[in-house]
């Protein structure tokens, strides 16, 4: 399936949601539910909690379609950011509540857990959003344990190109760890294909 809907689709969807078209909400769900749910699940590691986040995110979009700003990025990235924020907030809130009730661990440990879960979910999003050739190269080199020469042969590209793809793919992925530097919103906002 197409990962990046054309901007026209995004704007049209926004208009349809704004005018209260229930069928548009269904289409929105069909396109983004698995993205929202899997992001929330990566952060919270709990099926029910991920369901709740999914409900919250779609309710927010349905009630506030005008808050999407097409100039700032795709609807997909906007929804991913909403899902991520909701899930991280929930993880932090639940963790803090558990601590307040005398649960194990410290505030620092909770913060670290939140940070790690947050980066893991960003990384997932980045991998699923990056250009397919980069993703395929990472898949071969990391999950299939192919070296870059084998990767090049498998993909039918030069060794130079295989090295370039692996490096670029990791560079994109590394932005998932940049939470402090850019306030946590930037990985959702950029066209990954243009990064270098």
């Amino acid at each position, binding site marked *: 399936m197409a990962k990046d809907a054309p901007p026209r689709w995004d704007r049209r969807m926004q208009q349809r949601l704004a005018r209260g078209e229930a*069928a548009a*909400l*269904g289409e929105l769900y069909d396109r983004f539910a698995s993205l929202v749910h899997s992001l929330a699940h990566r952060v919270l590691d709990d099926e029910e909690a991920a369901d709740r986040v999914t409900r919250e995110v779609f309710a927010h979009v349905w009630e506030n379609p005008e808050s999407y700003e097409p100039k700032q990025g795709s609807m997909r990235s906007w929804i991913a950011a909403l899902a991520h924020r909701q899930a991280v907030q929930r993880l932090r809130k639940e963790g803090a509540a558990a601590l307040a009730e005398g649960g194990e661990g410290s505030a620092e440990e909770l913060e670290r857990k939140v940070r790690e879960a947050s980066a893991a979910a960003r990384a*997932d999003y980045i991998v699923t959003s990056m250009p397919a050739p980069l993703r395929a190269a990472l898949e071969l080199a990391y999950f299939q344990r192919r070296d870059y020469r084998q990767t090049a042969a498998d993909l039918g590209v030069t060794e130079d190109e295989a090295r370039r793809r692996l490096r670029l793919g*990791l560079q994109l992925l590394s932005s998932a760890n940049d939470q402090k530097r850019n306030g946590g919103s930037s990985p959702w906002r950029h066209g990954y294909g243009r990064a270098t």
Partner: protein
Amino acid sequence: MNPDPFGPGDGRPEDDGLPGAPARIPAPRESLEDSGRPLPEPEAPPIPALDHDVLKSLLGAWALAACAPDEAAAVELHLGICGPCADEALRLRDAVGLLQPEESLDLDPGLRSRVLAGCLDRRPPRIPVPDWAAPYDAETARLDALLQDIGDGEWHAPVRLKWYDGGSDRPVNRRTTVAGVIAHLLTVDGLVAVALGLEDPLGELTPDEATPWARTETYWKASHFPPTRTVRMPWREQSHALVRTVSFAGGGSGQLSVPYGTFSLPLRDSLIDRAFECWVHAGDIADAVDYPYEPPAPRHLNRMIDLAARMLPSALADRRREGLAAPAKGLVRAGSPGRSLRLEVEGLGGGEWLIALDSPGAVGSAEHEVAHVALDGVEFCRLAAGHVLPEEAAAGQDGDREAIRDVLSAAASLSRM
């Protein structure tokens, strides 16, 4: 030994900059191995001298442990003397830690309706989906989620479409593939699309006879190649377009007639019928690729059963005209109560229906009940889909055996490809 003319240890002065370059002459080994002392590390491969751009380009492969040992050694050597590359190498190695296998979680199919209902509760829609289109909306979404999960190869898994031929009272079947089933749904949903003024997925191919069967066979035969997974997009786009269009047309459009070639249905029933077919064929696909597939939501299942129950009197009349069912036991004026069979469908989504036996114009009546059939909702749907024979359907029966046989056969005769 060392094919790389610029490799280390060839005595060229440039090599002086590489402090880790190994000696060319190996240490004597015999005595060492006999001595019982620990053996030295195996001899490291010679480290090639690579220029900065090449080393930089290797950083990704290095972080993934996807370069040759001598290249890795060269990169590591370089990291000791090049700050920018060392910074990047660290970043990339941390990024590798973020690579995780994709979680293949199947979304709970019931989540969609819960999420949508929650949304619509908080902000009522100005343009709602008519309630008679809701089963079609839900079933197409459910099938699409199944298709999302299946692999490329599974699109070509063989599927046997089964239905019941009312004329010969025999089960019939037709072999196709998963992609062929979606093509079938695309072409028959296309009948509704055409009735709504949308584009016909068959385009110029449209056969003279607009039956579901003829349309499907025409579509299948039009290409030399069997359908592939590319059929998913047009099918899904069309199903979304149907829901969108009937929403704008409003609830009143439900009376619009949808011709099926040999008969027609009002739009509201037609979309229930398409939802039913979508579920039945999704079940065929799920069987073919060995996935579980649940029945529809009870309120949707109820509408499907209701449609079949309402179609039974005319199906009975058709069979009677062809001599396949017992003659009517008396004339019933249209709109008056007549001899009836009580159809009791058990389970979630079930209910009771009184089926007028002697004329489609008659009204089912509890006072004129001559027979009672009880069966499970999913079993009834399997019967109406032609997946189980009338005489084999697990049904509790009481009363006029002829009426029961005729009604069960009429239910099976509702099935199509």
